[in-house]
């Protein structure tokens, strides 16, 4: 049998045609379908709780106007409209993969208690999002510790000192500290602060000016 002699250009044409034809059957190039989950690695993360962010840290970042992360509220739109942590954006769990989040972003998730946030965390991890975090104990903890901090009457001097600091943080977010109430639960409906971005933070971080475009 005589070998078919191809010129360089013809060989190149054959190669691209083969690569192109195989592409039809190669599946979705957007990672996700082919992602493999390292279960052991995830389990270790959970065990060591390195995937958690405390509400104190978060409050601190918001006050300082840090912008290297995205705070994501995974609750429903209605709940989000009622109250959300300042600077948060609303992405319900079902809409997580509609393109708003990038895999290289630091993402902090929160929900009412933390279950939905944790479930969203697993979904993101399964889709190879590198740095997803959960706000520890969610909005409940945010209310307890940041908005409406309380202190026991028999608190030590140290605790009282720390509480003074917490009061200022609470004031920043428009909350109201509770003092001397041993039975915090009996407090009647606590007024949620208005949904306005605290002025001080707006001045510190400001609306970050847009970076230059990537295009030509």
């Amino acid at each position: 049998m005589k070998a078919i002699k191809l010129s360089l250009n013809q060989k190149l044409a054959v190669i691209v045609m083969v690569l192109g034809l195989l592409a039809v059957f190669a599946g979705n190039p957007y990672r996700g379908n082919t992602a493999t989950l390292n279960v052991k690695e995830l389990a270790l993360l959970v065990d060591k709780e390195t995937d958690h962010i405390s509400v104190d840290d978060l409050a601190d970042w918001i006050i300082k106007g840090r912008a290297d992360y995205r705070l994501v509220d995974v609750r429903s739109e209605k709940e989000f409209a009622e109250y959300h942590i300042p600077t948060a954006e609303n992405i319900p769990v079902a809409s997580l993969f509609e393109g708003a989040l990038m895999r290289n972003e630091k993402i902090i998730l929160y929900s009412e208690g933390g279950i939905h946030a944790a479930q969203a965390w697993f979904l993101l991890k399964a889709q190879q999002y590198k740095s997803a975090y959960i706000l520890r104990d969610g909005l409940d903890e945010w209310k307890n510790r940041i908005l409406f901090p309380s202190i026991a009457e028999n608190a030590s001097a140290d605790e009282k000192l720390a509480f003074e600091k917490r009061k200022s943080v609470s004031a920043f977010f428009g909350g109201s500290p509770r003092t001397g109430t041993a039975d915090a639960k009996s407090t009647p409906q606590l007024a949620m602060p208005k949904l306005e971005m605290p002025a001080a933070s707006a001045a510190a971080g400001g609306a970050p000016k847009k970076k230059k475009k990537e295009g030509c």
Partner: protein
Amino acid sequence: MNTIDVAAPEDIEERAPVEVIHKAQPFWNSYLAGIGLGLVLLAAFVIMGRGLGASGAFSSLVSVGINVVSPEHAQANGFFSENLGDGVHHPLKDWLVFEVMGVVVGGFVSGLFAHRLKGSVEKGPRISTGKRFLFAFLGGGIMGFGAKLARGCTSGQALTGGAVLGVGSWAFMLAVFAGGYAVAYFFRRQWT
């Protein structure tokens, strides 16, 4: 696969178009040069997550120039102020500006090794040098305006956007060829 009748490169030997350049090496096989270009673009995708560009560097340059002459005027204009950026980084410390500086160096180096460096004017035999200069300036002006309107030029839109299958980029690419072929007849004296 045997039916693909691509002519062998030796059949259509490429020749330097300007005969006065002595010893100038022939240009590369178009497909090999294209693969090289494609690999550079791919490297930009893999390393930076963005493609190539050229006209963007000119936007930065012009905006900086305007800003030097009249900062108020530059800031009041949405186009110039956007190209001046956030005020944190100097607008000329820009990715595309550095990339285009590289293009100049790369072109020079390639021309040097291929003995293609020579002061000359690219034109057909039927047009004077003065007229060619006028057309070059006019063409550059039209190109600059069009590139800004289209948000990119042949490098940023056609090449880069084409490779990532952007809808606007493909529409742009077809429009470029359509525009060029539509008026080519009227400017044939310049080139042929």
